[in-house]
């Protein structure tokens, strides 16, 4: 069975063309779409995330790798088995009010989606009221909040308060993240979980819902 080395390398480089060829080759050789996604694409994106954290690569490279993963996922889409596409849970995600950073949030969305979650992405500058409204509509299992500015972190607390006031706080788990956010801050504002990067966001999301 393939170790998806070439695919992984192509994702690391953000070389979409080669990655698509390699993903197709893997399918032709009999690998399942799920296997290619998990062992090829997601593993490679986790490596990219690690390299970013260590300062070995910067934002554009990360964006190119993400794009490559997205294109490959599209290619795999028709090949998923019925059991694979059962959603692991619904995640409502957005960058909080006042904040326009979305690269990290988009990566988290993509990785959660890759791991089988159904995503509703509210974009950037999302007010507590809008989170409340959409929570009522979508009934997510997890509400994921992103903030990259120290000055917008309080909007995470305000969002949790608004959910509380609307009687929705116990209907969904709240997970938070973004470069200035910490585990300690998550505890302080009564979030249910914190993750420092997209890879661990997937593990934390699964843990929150008690799935593997």
């Amino acid at each position: 069975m393939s170790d998806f080395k070439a695919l992984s390398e192509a994702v690391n480089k953000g070389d979409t063309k080669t990655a698509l060829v390699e993903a197709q080759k893997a399918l032709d050789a009999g690998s399942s779409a799920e296997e290619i996604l998990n062992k090829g694409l997601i593993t490679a994106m986790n490596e990219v995330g690690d390299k970013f954290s260590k300062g070995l690569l910067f934002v554009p490279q990360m964006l190119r790798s993400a794009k490559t993963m997205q294109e490959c996922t599209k290619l795999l889409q028709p090949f998923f088995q019925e059991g694979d596409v059962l959603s692991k849970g619904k995640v409502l995600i957005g960058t909080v009010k006042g904040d326009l950073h979305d690269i990290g949030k988009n990566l988290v969305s993509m990785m959660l989606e890759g791991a089988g979650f159904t995503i509703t992405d509210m974009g950037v500058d999302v007010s507590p009221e809008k989170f409340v409204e959409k929570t009522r509509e979508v009934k997510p299992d997890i509400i994921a909040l992103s903030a990259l500015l120290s000055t917008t972190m309080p909007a995470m607390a305000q969002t949790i308060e608004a959910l509380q006031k609307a009687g929705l706080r116990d209907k969904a788990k709240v997970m938070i993240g973004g470069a200035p956010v910490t585990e300690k801050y998550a505890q302080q504002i009564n979030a249910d979980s914190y993750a420092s990067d997209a890879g661990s966001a997937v593990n934390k999301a699964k843990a929150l819902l008690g799935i593997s």
Partner: protein
Amino acid sequence: MTTSDKTEGITNIIACAVFMLAIEHLQLKKKYHNMRLTYLPARLHLKPAELKKCLQREVSRAQAKGERIICLYGECFPDIDGFCKRHRIIKVPGSYCYEMLLGSERFKQLIDETTGTYFLEEGLIINFEDFCMGPLELQDEEMRRQCFEHYKKLLYIRQPSDKNLVPRANELAQLLGLSLEIQDADYSHIEKTLTELLKGDAW
């Protein structure tokens, strides 16, 4: 600096290079003889962890000489306030350099007006290639879109000692497909804050 330099009683302002113009304009060095200035490159903002390391290095150097330290930075890496407290140095209040130049009230008013604002100041305009365009590969249209699609305007915070940077700011606005607005900042806020800290009330 050599080890024989007498630094007892000296206050070292460790500042982001963004503030160089303001500090020169205020002629702090002439007014406070027991003051030293250390500038760190503004480019470090791209990598907050590196910025923290460089600041740490300068703080250790200054403290080894017994200097008192004022840290003139916004909240440019996570928990910079905690960092300053742990090292028992004073951080100038404020989350952003733009806020320090404009004063908190006016800054807050400006960001409450529209969220789609990307701030510019002298250093960022002059070094846009180096600080933003190059590292984020903004010459690539797709990267420009991914980075700036949620922005509406560039807001140039013009300082009294700026050269005429409006043409360049206009070019940047055009490149990014945003409108350009200008707000003039005098140095009264930063002067007041630094003067209070230098007078030593806070020590």
